Every structure is written in C-alpha cells, then in structure tokens.
C-alpha cells in the first residue's frame, strides 16, 4: 500500500474543487505553522519586545539569553538529561518486553484473545486511576521522584504499544523459515533468536521510536511522580504558569529545545505513523 509520501494519480476523487482544495491545504498549513513560528520568534526576542503593541513580528536584535536562562536558571539542562535517560532506558525495556510478548502472541497465540486484549486495555485506562495508587506505593517503595520509578511506570504504559506493534509485525512475517529451522533440529528459542529476531529488527526500531516519542512528550505521570530530582523536561513548564509575562522567552526557549528531538525522530518514522497511532491495527 502506498505510504504517506506517495499517492495514486488515478482520478478517484475528482471533486472538481481544485482551487478550493489547495486553498484549504494552504490555510491549514498556516494554522499548523503559525504557533511554531511564534514560539521560535518569542524565544529569541529581547525581553522588552514581549509587551509591545503591536506585537513584534521579528525582533530587530535576536538574542539567546532565554535559552541559557531556560537551561540553567530553570534547570532545563537537568530536565533534558532526566528526559534523555528515562526515555532511552524505557525505550530499550519496552521494545525488549514488547518483542518477546509480541512474538509469543503471534506465533503461539498465547492466552488466546484474552491476553492480547488485556494488554491492549491497559492503553485505555485513565492515567489518573493508575497514578493515584502508584504515587502512594512509590512513596513507600522509595521510588517516588526517582528515574527508576519513572522508567518502570513508563515501560508499563508503553507496553500495549510495543506489544501490539510487534504482534502485528510478527504476524505478517512468514513463519516458514522458523518451521524449517525447527525441522533441522533447531530449538524454539533458537528459531526465535536466530531466525525471527533478525527479521524483525526494522519493526522493533519503529516500535522503539514510538515508545521514545511517547515518553519524551509525556507530562501527566512525570508531573505527579517526580519533584525536585527526577523531573523531566515537560514538567518544567509548571514554573511558567500564571501571568508572569517576563518569562515568555524562557518558556518558549524550553519549548523549542524540547520539541526538536521528538520532531526529528517523528520524521524518521513518518512512513509508519499510521501503524504507530493505531497500535498496528491499520497499515498506512
């Protein structure tokens, strides 16, 4: 099937509204780009430019002071490091556990439909229902405000994504090669490890990138399970709430810093976006 990057040229939807169509796409592009433009501009404006009427559309003297303030005065750098460590370790764990379970579901139909549905249902639990008891348990387990605590909960939260993406991926891999290996005296673990796993690497990479993006952009769990030590990048925005107009620059600088990595990664997996968004249910 055609990916996002290409479309068919057949006259399937000859709506005849050629101009109207392009106008709509153009307006939508402006809608998408306007906030991005504004946040980038705000992040390099001198402080005196924020409170100007009419607004300053492009600063005469761009500055990077807000970036240094966001990274150091507001501990953006510490948040960046926490986010990177937590997201990386979570990604590895989630991809590993997801691959193991996805393979088992796809090849052995383990637990029938109940087990796979049970994992999936976790995806739709309201986070508030999980985070309240986990907050209490983490306090008594010594995991509150630790990177390990965040990594564990994030691995659990991303499991439905990893498991289902890998489940769908293994289902579409032919199993003949594994069967041939079994006939040749290979153990089942050998067939998994030496035959199926190498073939699944592209699928694992895509699932891992989606898990990374999820963790990198997640706010709710980090807000409630961390405080002064393990706080991630998105939680720093707490400091900018309210009507403190003088901090628009810092908030914008932090926003720009935070969105670059996930957008870059997102662009790498854009061909697989539909699978990622629907947990492998729809092929784009």
């Amino acid at each position, binding site marked *: 099937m055609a990916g996002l990057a290409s479309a068919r040229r057949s006259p399937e939807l000859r709506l005849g509204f050629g101009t109207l169509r392009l106008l709509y796409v153009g307006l939508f592009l402006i809608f998408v780009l306007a906030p991005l433009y504004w946040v980038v501009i705000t992040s390099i404006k001198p402080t005196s430019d924020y409170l100007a009427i009419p607004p300053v559309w492009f600063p005469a003297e761009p500055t990077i002071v807000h970036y240094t303030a966001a990274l150091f005065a507001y501990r953006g750098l510490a948040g960046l490091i926490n986010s990177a460590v937590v997201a990386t370790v979570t990604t590895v764990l989630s991809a590993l556990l997801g691959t193991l379970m996805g393979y*088992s579901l796809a090849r052995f139909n383990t637990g029938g439909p109940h*087990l796979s549905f049970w994992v999936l249902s976790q995806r739709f639990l309201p986070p*508030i229902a999980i985070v309240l008891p986990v907050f209490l348990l983490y306090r008594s387990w010594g995991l509150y405000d630790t990177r390990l605590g965040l990594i564990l909960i994030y691995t659990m939260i991303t499991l439905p994504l990893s498991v289902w993406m890998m489940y*769908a991926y293994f289902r579409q891999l032919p199993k003949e090669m594994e069967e041939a290996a079994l006939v040749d005296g290979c153990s089942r673990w050998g067939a*998994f490890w030496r035959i199926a796993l190498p073939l699944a690497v592209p699928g694992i990479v895509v699932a891992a990138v989606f898990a990374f993006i999820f963790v990198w952009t997640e706010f709710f769990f980090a807000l409630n399970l961390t405080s002064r030590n393990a706080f991630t990048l998105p939680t720093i925005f707490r400091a900018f709430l309210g009507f403190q107009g003088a901090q628009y620059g810092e908030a914008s600088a932090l926003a720009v810093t935070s969105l670059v990595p996930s957008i870059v990664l997102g662009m790498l997996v854009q061909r697989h976006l539909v699978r990622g968004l629907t947990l*492998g249910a729809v092929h784009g």
Partner: protein
Amino acid sequence: MARSVGADDVTERRTVWGAAASSFADRHIAWLLVLPAVLLILVLSIYPLAYSVWVAFVNFDFEIPGHAFVGLKNFQQIVDDPIARWSLVNTAILSVACVAVEFVLGLLLALAMVKTFRGRGLIMPILILPLFISPVIVGQFWSLLLQQPFGPTNYLLGKLVGQPVEIGWLTQTPWNFIAIVTADAWQWTAFMFVILLAGLTSIAPEMFEAAELDGATPWQTFYHVTLPLLAPIILLAITFRLLDAVKLFDVIYVMTGGGPGASTYTASFYLYQIGFQQFHLSKATAGSWIFLALSAVIIMALVRRLLRPEVR
C-alpha cells in the same frame, strides 16, 4: 583416575540439568516470553488498582491521620460534589467537541491531500508535525498566541474587524472552551488526517471509475462510495481519538488551570486537584474508580469490536 571420573560426572550432571532446563524452556517458550511483560503489568497496574480499591474505602487523607474504614463515604463525597458532576459533563462536552472538529477538519484534509500535486511531499511532514510535540508545549503555544493583551491573535483580529478586540481567550467563557478545542485540534487533527488518508488510499480505484461510468456526481460518489467504504476506518479513528480525548488534562493545566473558577475542569483535572493539590487521596481514588467504570463502558462497547488485527 578418580578425579577424572568425578569431573566427567560433573560435566554430565551439568548437561543433564542443562538439557532438562532447556527442554523446560522450550516446552514453555510461549509463556516464558510473555512473562516479563505480564509481570510488569501485574505489579504496576493490576496491583496498584487493587490497592486503590482499599484506598477508596478507607480514610487516606494527608489532612486526617489514620486509615480507618469509612465504607462508601468517599464515593458519596464525589457524587455529592457539584464540581465533580460538572467536570464529568465538561469532559463529555469537550471530548465530543474536540473529536468532532478534528474529524471534520481531518477528513477534509485527507480528501484534499489524497491526489498528488506538486509540493505534496513537502507539505506532508509539516501537517503531521504536531503529533510529535508534547501537549504541554502545545498548550504553551496557544497561551502565547491567545494571551491578552499582548498576544498576536487579538491584535490580528482587531486589524481584521477594524476595531480593537479584547477577548480573554483563557479567562472568559465560552472563549476558553474555544481556545482549548483549538489547541487540541491543532495537535490531533493530524491523527484523523493520516488514518483517514490511509483509508482513502486503500480504496480500489475501480470503485470510483465505476461510479464515474454510472454518471455519479462527485457528491454522490463521496456519499455512496467513499463514505461507506471508509466507514470502518472512520469508526476506528474516532474510537481511538475519543478514548484519548476523555483523558484531557495537559492543555487545560497549562492554558486555563481549570478556570475561570472550575469552568474548564475535566474529570482528570478535577481528580488531580482533589488528589494531588488538596491531598484528599481517598476521595480522589473513589472518584477515579467512578471515572474508570464509566470509561470502561465506552472501552468495552467500542474497542472489543474494532481492534481485531484483521481490521484493515
């Protein structure tokens, strides 16, 4: 001599044990592979949920010492709280509004983008970009754009209508609702768009050719061919979006803080306030069980039917 026999014995015992272990592992490979993931979910989801049942029936409040059994008191407090009921209604209003707006905008975008044109390959990455940004940052974007009096939105609107516009987008009802839906739609229209686009491109071109031969107008083709063929994927896209939209929290937290008053409280925001700001943990937990039960009804109704891997 004796020593070498002993050594052989040890090696042999090892291989016997090794063989037994590997044959055990091989016979139970299916369950051993799912074990780590299942254990993690049991420890960090099922156990906390079970624990929270206990929390919901006792007194667990940082303002009141002790954990005495209080029966249904916590649930009663939630049911009696007008703000709780308002938050629930609000969750329904906001999530339906967000999903509806995103669906219409996303479907139009998918229809507009399904045919190739020059520059399409460049536009595509920009259209999906919002999906990779943290919702907190999206809230921050729109706070910057909409804030009063220095934000650019009111200024541009003022230029457009020829007189100063002073809308408190974040502080006045109903503008705060419009602001929240706008921010959410900015981020998630792309979600509808890519899924519906995948659906559109998977429809066989013969279907449209046949409709054209029969002399169908574009509108007739859309209504009688495209829409019915797209129906399963539309249902799937709306289900997925709706299940996330009812959790709406981040954008509210950043943009309105639930305000003014409690006007933009959602269920998640309300429970967060009760649990993590006022530390009435038992009351919040009881509330989260009510919310969970209500969401479960939607989940059961929609997901079980939709999410077979066979769905294409």
